[in-house]
Each structure stands twice: as C-alpha cells, then as structure tokens.
C-alpha cells in the first residue's frame, strides 16, 4: 500500500488481513498490546509476525515467559513459510525469560525498581546486539505478576517501550485476560500505555465459537475498528469480516 505524505513508516506484519485493517501495517517502532483470553490465537499470530519478519531478513526476537521455547516450537502450526534455517541463521531467536531472570540473579518473587531497570536494560541490550527489528514478549502478563504494583508495571512497560522504540524495533506484548473480561489487560495499566491494542477473543454465536480479532487502538495510523473472524492455517492467519446479520448473541 503506498504511503501517504507525512505517514509513518510501516512494519508490514505479513498477515494480509491485519495489514489491510491497519492500512499497511503497524507503524514502525510501535509497541502493541496483543490481548485476549486463552485459545484465541495470540501466540500463533505473534509468532507469525516474527516469522514473516525473519523471512524478509529482519532480525526477530521471541521472549518466552510462560512456555519453554522448545515446547512452543514443537507445537507451532506447520506454516508453509516457516523454515528452521531462520532459527539456525539467527534471524529468528527464542529466549526464555526465566533463564534471563536467573542469569541476572532475579530470584525473588517480586522485582524491585532497580531490578526492573536491569531487566529492561538486559532486553534492550540483547535486542541491540541482535539488531532486532521485531520483538514479542509472551506474555507481558506473566512479567507483570513479578512486578505486582501498577506503578512498577507502568514503569516497566514505559521503559521497555522507549528502549525498543529507540532501537526502531516494532514490538508485540502478549497480554492475557480472563474470558469475558471488560478490560484489555489483567492489571489495567498495560492497555493505557501501549501504542496499540489488538483484541483477540472467542465469540459465541448460537452455540458456535468463533475466533475474532479487533483493532481497538493504533497510534500513528487509521485503522478499521470492525470485528473480524480468523482462522489459524498453515498459510498463516486468515481474516474475514464478522457477518453482522448474525451478531445477535
């Protein structure tokens, strides 16, 4: 899609439907909250975002917090465009955050402000070293459990976003919410300070469970705010508009 004058450079996600919804992609260096309850496809979408980047030659980094990255890779959708050489060549890197905690000596259940700075610096340093252009943290909610207070969560996300943005890195923070939750994040802070919110959900309609995606906010671009139904397939995430005639739950 041609850029209009004054528009920000885009990070083309490679997910056709999403790029269309965002009028060309995520504004480069934005930090996005990808939020939803379990089983909505957040990790798959985030992974696809990184794989497309790696295929294009952009260094991509997945920071796994909840799941061991080996297990994650074992369960990955057999994407037709995924090649393990992306990992071998270092264009797609997986890091387990618990290992990073251990190396940084962060053994306490709750991180203090000093440790937050240390963690942000460690992630930024790694991203800089790898020349990372795309980054995913899955999930930011699990990190937030170690921060506990709203102040610390705000501080951590703001500092991390700033550090990654300075590196011209486009980031996705995966956020978990309970099914039927009315807010977009577990602690209510994450949503307010991210540049964009992409909400994924399970929508029940007459007994059918549909996976949906909706862009709630995205700084730096116009975007559709409609709800789309998605499918996770070997050719990637596919999206179609939710049919309105069936919107009566």
């Amino acid at each position, binding site marked *: 899609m041609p850029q209009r004058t004054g528009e920000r450079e885009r990070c083309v996600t490679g997910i056709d439907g999403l790029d269309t919804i965002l009028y060309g992609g995520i504004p480069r260096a934005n930090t996005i909250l990808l939020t939803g309850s379990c089983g909505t496809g957040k990790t798959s979408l985030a992974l696809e975002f990184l794989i497309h980047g790696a295929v294009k030659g952009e260094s991509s980094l997945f920071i796994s917090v909840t799941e061991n990255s080996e297990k994650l890779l074992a369960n990955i959708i057999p994407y037709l465009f995924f090649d393990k050489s992306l990992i071998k060549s270092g264009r797609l890197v997986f890091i387990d955050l618990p290992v990073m905690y251990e190396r940084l000596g962060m053994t306490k259940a709750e991180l203090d402000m000093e440790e937050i700075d240390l963690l942000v610096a460690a992630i930024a340093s790694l991203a800089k070293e790898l020349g990372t252009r795309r980054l995913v943290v899955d999930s930011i909610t699990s990190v937030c459990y170690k921060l506990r207070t709203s102040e610390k969560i705000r501080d951590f996300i703001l500092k991390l976003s700033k550090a990654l943005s300075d590196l011209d890195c486009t980031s996705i923070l995966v956020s978990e919410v309970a099914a039927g939750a009315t807010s977009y994040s577990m602690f209510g802070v994450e949503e307010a300070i991210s540049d964009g919110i992409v909400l994924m959900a399970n929508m029940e*309609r*007459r*007994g*059918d469970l*549909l996976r949906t995606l909706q862009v709630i906010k995205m700084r730096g671009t116009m975007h559709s705010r409609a709800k789309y*139904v*998605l*499918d996770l*397939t070997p*050719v990637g995430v*596919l*999206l*179609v*508009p*939710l*049919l*309105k*005639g*069936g919107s009566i739950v």
Partner: protein
Amino acid sequence: MTDVKMAQNLADQLGEISPSSAVSLQMSVDNYLEVLRGMIDLFANRRGMDTVYVTATISFEAIKRILQALDIDTSKIYFVDCISHIMMGASASQLDEHTTLVESPTMLENLMLKVEYLLRRSQAKEKLVIIDSINSLAIHNNNWILSEFLHILVSGLRAKEAYSIILSVEEHSTPELNNIVNLVCDQGLRASGKEV
C-alpha cells in the same frame, strides 16, 4: 434433451463466461448428476481448474462416491464440508488435504476462511468455487446473514478472478432466496428436464 447433451450444454454455457463471474445455477433434483458432470468433468476438469466444492447438502464422501461412479476425476477437487460434522459423521481418518470440515453450516465466516485457504494453496491458473446449495444453507441461516455472506464471498472470489457457481434447487427455492442469489450473480442458468 438427453442427459449427456444437458451436461455438455451446461459446460458450453459455463465456458462462455469470463473469470471473476458468478453464476446462479438453478437445477431440478433429478438433474443433479448431469449438473455435476457438466460443471466438474466437462467444464472445470477439462480446463485444468482446481475446484473448491462447498457442500452443505450431503457429505463430501457421498459426493465423492457419486463422482467416482460417474467416472469423474476428483484429483483437482477440494471439499469444504459443512454438514458432516454436525451429523457426527466425520472421522479424522476420512480427512485428507482435499477435505476440510466446517463445524456447522451456521459458521459462514469459517466457510469463507476455508475457501480462502484452499484458494491460496491452489497452484492452478483457473479456479472454480461451487456452493451446493443455497437452499441447504438457508435451512440453517436467515436470509439477512445469507445475503451478507454471499455478497462478501462472491466479491472476494471476483477479486481473485475465481469462477463461482451457486447452486439452487428449484423445487425448494423461494422468491426471496432467488433474489438473494440473483443480487450477487452476473448470470443465471437453469438445468431442468426441459432445457439448460
């Protein structure tokens, strides 16, 4: 008109339409076999097309059996079956890369997504999508959502330069349903005992 002539006549008429076209094909129940032969064997297969066959009427297995009995090559047909799952009639062992199940004919968005997926995987130059049938989908969906579905589906298929054929069974059609189909189709064909 003989059965063979009817099938050939249908194929000839389909051969005159251009890619991106949507055709409403109204048929009599009695002419189902000739319609299958005309659309798939004499039109799509002869032109090397990949066919995405969306079935909401009978299971993909039943259609496959019919096609095989008619000695029609099924190697370029990909089924999107919306009925086997709700009939609890599908098992994983029956599925292959030629068959995709949609849990229910009410999941019209998923139906579109499966068609999209198969078209993206297709390497064929020309592609045909058959909806069998609008009457069966109408059993499970109201006219409002059905109309919206057809509009989005057919518009998407046009953009991909795929041919689309929407089958309707004249014995079960209503003026409302015919209007919904006619609204999105460029051309209407009829396959009955008298003429095509």
